């Protein structure tokens, strides 16, 4: 019901954007630019840093969408942990500092074509479907309290399952990263 009402609400035009919209679009452009640089730059370390920018920009977008808890989680986990992990990964695989000319593989044109086609399809569909859909940002939707309540009231079982998943991932990562015991024995001998 709510959906139908908002869908028919035609009082909000695209030609008269609100302030939050302008900010959203500008930050969105920044995120998009950073993401593009992440996937195109020749310098591997720079790519990780541009990823920080893109993910941080996304956190701002979450804030603009009034999902504050998600935004902070984003900053904490992604910008804080994941990017650091990625940087470690780059270093451990001896990624060269400075431009590496072969950062892109041979099927770049194919990837470009597929990505472009996907983008065209998705954007066409999304625009076609949600042309006149309006989000009412009047009340905060993602406060920490609300999230905590739903998460530990309704989603507690998946939450616990996820913790097991994380544990499994932790164990798996350790097992994978360990050097082969036999190989080490041979080396020591």
């Amino acid at each position: 019901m709510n959906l139908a009402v908002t869908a028919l609400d035609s009082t909000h035009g695209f030609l008269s954007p609100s302030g939050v919209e302008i900010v959203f679009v500008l930050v969105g452009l920044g995120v998009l630019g950073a993401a593009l640089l992440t996937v195109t730059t020749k310098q591997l370390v720079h790519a990780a840093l541009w990823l920080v920018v893109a993910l941080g920009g996304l956190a701002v977008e979450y804030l603009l969408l009034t999902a504050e808890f998600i935004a902070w989680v984003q900053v904490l986990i992604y910008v804080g942990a994941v990017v650091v992990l990625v940087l470690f990964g780059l270093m451990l695989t001896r990624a060269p500092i400075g431009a590496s000319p072969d950062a892109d593989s041979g099927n770049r044109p194919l990837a470009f074509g597929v990505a472009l086609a996907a983008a065209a399809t998705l954007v066409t569909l999304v625009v076609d479907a949600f042309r006149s859909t309006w989000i009412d940002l009047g009340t905060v939707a993602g406060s920490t309290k609300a999230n905590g309540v739903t998460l530990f009231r309704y989603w507690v079982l998946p939450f616990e399952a996820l913790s097991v998943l994380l544990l499994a991932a932790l164990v798996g990562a350790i097992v994978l990263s360990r050097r082969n015991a036999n190989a080490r024995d041979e080396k020591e001998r």
Partner: protein
Amino acid sequence: MTLTLAILVPLLPFLGALAGLAAGRRAPGMVRPLAVLPTLASVVLAVLVAVKLGTGHHLDAATQLTPTGGTPISLSLHLDGIAALLAVLVTVVAACVQIYSTAYLREDPRYPSYAALVSLFTAAMLLVVYSGDLIVLLVGWEVMGVCSYFLVGHHWERSEARSASIKAFLVTKLGDVPFLFGIFVLAADAGTFRINGIVGAAAGGHLHHATLAALLLLGGVAGKSAQFPLHTWLPDAMAGPTPVSALIHAATMVAAGVYLVARLEPVFLLSTAALVVLGVMAVVTMVGSALCALAQDDMKRVLAYSTVGQLGYMAGALAVGDRDAALFHLITHGAFKALLFLAAGVVIHAVHTNSLTAMGRMDGLRRRVPDAYATMGIGLAALAGLPPFSGFFSKDAILTAAEHAARGEALTGGLGPAGNVPSWLGWTVLVGGLLTALLTAAYATRLWLLAFFPVRRAEQAGAPVAPTAAAAAALASDEPAGPVEPAAMKGPLWLLAVPSLALGLVGLWPHALPAWLDGVALTPSGVTWPIATVVALLGAGLAWLAWRRATARVLAEAEADPAAAADPAPLLLGPLLGPARTGFGIDTLYDRAFVRPVLGAARLVSFLDREVVETYVKGAAVTPGLIGRVVRRAQNGNIQGYLSALAAGVVVLAVIVAVAQ
């Protein structure tokens, strides 16, 4: 009793053939007795059967092994005077050939299979002779065809023997196809395959398609009896061993066609068209083959063409409705032609060549092979139709029949209406027969003179050595090997010389032979025999004169061409020599008309098969291969490539779903 004996006559050579084939490898010593003894026993039995049967009787016996559909096929025996006499001829000739072969093919490693095939051949011919059922007769007929294929191709190492055997087989088979249909037409009209039934239906006027059946049967007869236009296999069949030629030419294979027409003469007499075709065919055959015989250089080919011509005589006699004359000539011809071939075999054995020209250069042949010289003289005299040899009487019987037919009163012996034989056909056969008699005498004389009377050149008077190195080598190599004329060769020669010389005399008794047959008188009539004798003497004289002139010319030009032979053929034939030597180009014609188109079609088919059909097949294999190669390219191990394809597929599906909605 007579029935049992009659069954044993074809059965013994058949069992001999089987035993010979079985014993051939394991017991080489058994092969000769196994080849000769059953055949000899058959001779005795055939004579016994003939005597027991007596004149004017006939014996019919039939048993049906199993029901065979609409028209029953029965294992039936039909013995009458014709069959009994012919069986005697076949067994005698076969026995002579078997005895002769033991000496002639003494050194041959494939003698066991050869002897077994000859026995089988004999058995098949005896089956044809005795059979009272057309299908059973056809079995013997086809077995003969197969045996002739193997025997003509006995020397299969030589390419001409191979091609000759294939040619003999194909040409006779070509005739057998209409023959088979002719049998079916007859059986459909008469409701039985029994010869008696068919003849009875012919007499009763129940045969509604007599012309069709007779014309179809003529195809097979022309093939087997080597009548124009299917005669071409016979001269080539000379590639086989000489005794085989004697067997095929004298008593078995070629006689089968004439014998069949004789048996079914009442059917033929119902149809003027069939008689006309048969008569014209016979005349063309006899004149053409006599001309060809006059031009040949190969001794055996001369004899082969003479066989074709004599068979033409028999076909002519049948065409004018007189089967007695035809069978008379068949029997005398069987005797003297077997004699001629066996004698020729002795000569060829002695000089190691078939060529008359080469023999003409060889001195002393008469002394080396006196028996062959004498018996061949008898045989050639009989062939030429000189009185009182056998050929004279039988040929004269045919001419008499033709003369009667020309007068409009054909001697059908009560087998059919004489009015169906047109008088112009009688004239044609008569004139053709006389012309052939002239030519036959000429080529017989030429053969004899060329083979046994070499040109005595002046410089050779003191040195009676063979003039050519090859012949000298042949002489030298042959002398120590043994006698040139072993007893096993000489015996059959003289045995056959007796009937060649004297068998004709039975024609003088008005009722001796006709009592066995249809009762038509076979005595020489007052009109034809003086003419025939004069014509034969004229032919022989002309040949002799020409030979004298040729000899004189060779002697005169001895300096220029010492190897020339005194061949009278160029003088006698003039411009016809070239065409006659090649058989009037009929082989070439067949080659152009049939062989090449067939070969072309075969090439086309093979081209279509190889290039078109196979292309489809290959394409069917190559296309999946190419597709597979394309698909393999996708399996390059590049995960990003896989992912790209996956994502592209998802996009495409999304687009399809979106558009479909």
